[in-house]
């Protein structure tokens, strides 16, 4: 569906993307995950045609659109801050893409209105068509933006931090709702996020980006369980790092076994409940490394000043070049 080949982009002196290759299959739901400045939004905007690459090609459905302007790419785009047209009703916002169509494809007004109604039903905003965006909540506005993008029957849907401006509860609801919508509509979709939880929950495949490069592409489970680089290990999920001969050992807070004769000892200096577990934080005896551990909350809460002895039961070893030298489960 989408084939990106050797996409590079600079902003002045600042290199934003170094040679990105990526293939997306029809109907896939892809997350571009990375910290700010990783190039994920730039990549999304290049796919949309809102930005143009310095070199490389963009193929959409087998067609080379590398130089095609955004208006002719037929791609739905949802912005972080909705970008709704404030002076138009919700229904007019949704029908906008149909009303600017010229030539044969132009639908009569009644048909455009009917289509807008249908899309508002799809995003569960039936009956709000006559309102103005200013009269809706953030979550509702983002759904209007989504309906507006879907109205042009795009060949793919691109979402730039679609939940970034919403509060936690609304974000969670909207996330679940978007996943269901994707199942229902089956449209090839790519969304940008810096929130690893969001990426792992929604996407079929996660593309982890850092400093203008793709670090790893894989199913959420694979990216979480088998990070290929120290960056992915650190950025996706929580990771403790221990210096070791020739590199670093990475292990998750829950990947430990408590043992009275454990090789490591944590001096607890902060404890709090994190959902179903106790989270204990502090410095390791000896190395002085900061680590976080998850302990079953069925037991007593760890005490401040207490020493917890443990062994990491699965861990990954990365050498100084960032290559993985030793797999999981030792």
């Amino acid at each position: 569906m989408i084939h990106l080949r050797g996409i590079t982009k600079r902003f002045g002196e600042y290199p934003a993307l170094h040679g990105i290759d990526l293939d997306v299959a029809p109907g896939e739901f892809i997350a571009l995950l990375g910290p700010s400045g990783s190039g994920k939004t730039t990549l999304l905007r290049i796919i949309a045609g809102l930005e143009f690459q310095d070199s490389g090609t963009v193929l959409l459905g087998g067609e080379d659109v590398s130089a095609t302007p955004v208006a002719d790419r037929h791609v739905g785009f949802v912005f972080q801050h909705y970008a709704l047209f404030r002076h138009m009703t919700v229904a007019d916002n949704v029908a906008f893409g149909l009303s600017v169509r010229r030539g044969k494809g132009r639908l009569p007004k009644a048909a455009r209105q009917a289509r807008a109604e249908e899309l508002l039903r799809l995003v569960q905003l039936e009956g709000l068509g006559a309102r103005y965006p200013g009269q809706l909540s953030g979550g509702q506005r983002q759904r209007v933006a989504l309906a507006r993008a879907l109205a042009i029957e795009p060949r793919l849907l691109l979402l730039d931090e679609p939940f970034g401006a919403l509060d936690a509860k609304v974000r969670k609801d909207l996330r679940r709702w978007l996943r269901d919508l994707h199942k229902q509509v089956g449209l090839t979709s790519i969304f940008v996020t810096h929130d690893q939880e969001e990426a792992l929950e929604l996407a079929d495949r996660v593309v982890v980006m850092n400093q203008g490069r793709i670090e790893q592409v894989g199913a959420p489970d694979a990216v979480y369980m088998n990070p290929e680089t120290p960056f992915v290990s650190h950025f996706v999920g929580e990771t403790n790092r221990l210096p070791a001969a020739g590199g670093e050992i990475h292990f998750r807070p829950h990947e430990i076994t408590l043992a009275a004769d454990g090789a490591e000892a944590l001096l607890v200096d902060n404890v709090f409940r994190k959902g179903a577990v106790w989270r204990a934080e502090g410095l390791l005896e000896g190395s002085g490394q900061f680590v976080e551990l998850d302990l079953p909350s069925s037991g007593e809460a760890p005490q401040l000043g207490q020493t917890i002895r443990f062994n990491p039961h699965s861990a990954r070893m990365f050498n100084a070049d960032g290559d993985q030298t030793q797999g999981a489960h030792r």
Partner: protein
Amino acid sequence: MLPGFGLSFGFTLAWLTLIVLIPLATIFLKAGGMGWAQFVEVGFSPRAMAAYRLSFGTAAMAGLVNAVFGLVVAWVLVRYSFPGKQVVSALVDLPFALPTAVAGIALTALYAPQGWIGQYLEPLGIKVAFTWVGISIALVFIGLPFVVRSVEPVLADLGREVEEAAATLGASRWQTFTRVIFPAIGPALLTGFALAFARGVGEYGSVIFISGNMPGRTEIAPLLIVTQLEQYAYAGATAIAVVMMLASFAVLLLINLIQAASRRRMGA
């Protein structure tokens, strides 16, 4: 709400009364001193009518020109960064600060038949100085900052994203402008137009040099008032002032009503 509605509304009313209403009321009182017949004779004399037409016509013309080009200037200031941007921005405000007579003299020097620009226009049969065209140019000059400063913040607030959204939905640049940008900044543009227009109607200093002041042809209403005053015809001056004031108020009220309606529509 900070000071409470009762207090702030009372203060607003008292202040407006002191600063605006009392001075204006004295004009009405002064004009009231003359009989209705005399009021009509002076206030609606052919010479006065020609002056109103000229003042309101050139002010409207200048307001429209400023609406178009002021929008372009505001656009460039908001959307692009370039070396010297702050200098350009300060230049926009200069007509606010410059004594209007200076502007008038400068424009006359430029556009008079022997002036820098006027000497090239003269052979083409285009007369600027001492015609309504010259008056309009002077009013364009003094009205520009009103439009630029009214539109600029709204344009900045609108952001580039809505333009990008329109483009992703297949809109051409022209459709994006006419259907998305223009309706959004319309109320601010109207405000800018209204301010430039109001300023133009009342403008005196910059116009009298370039207009030539021929009664019935290039004599603006504010000048007619001054002429009356110089002849100690105070009642006549106030009669013309009253007519101008009512006409201006009607236009400004209309513009305010249009804006209130559009604000309601946007649900803000």
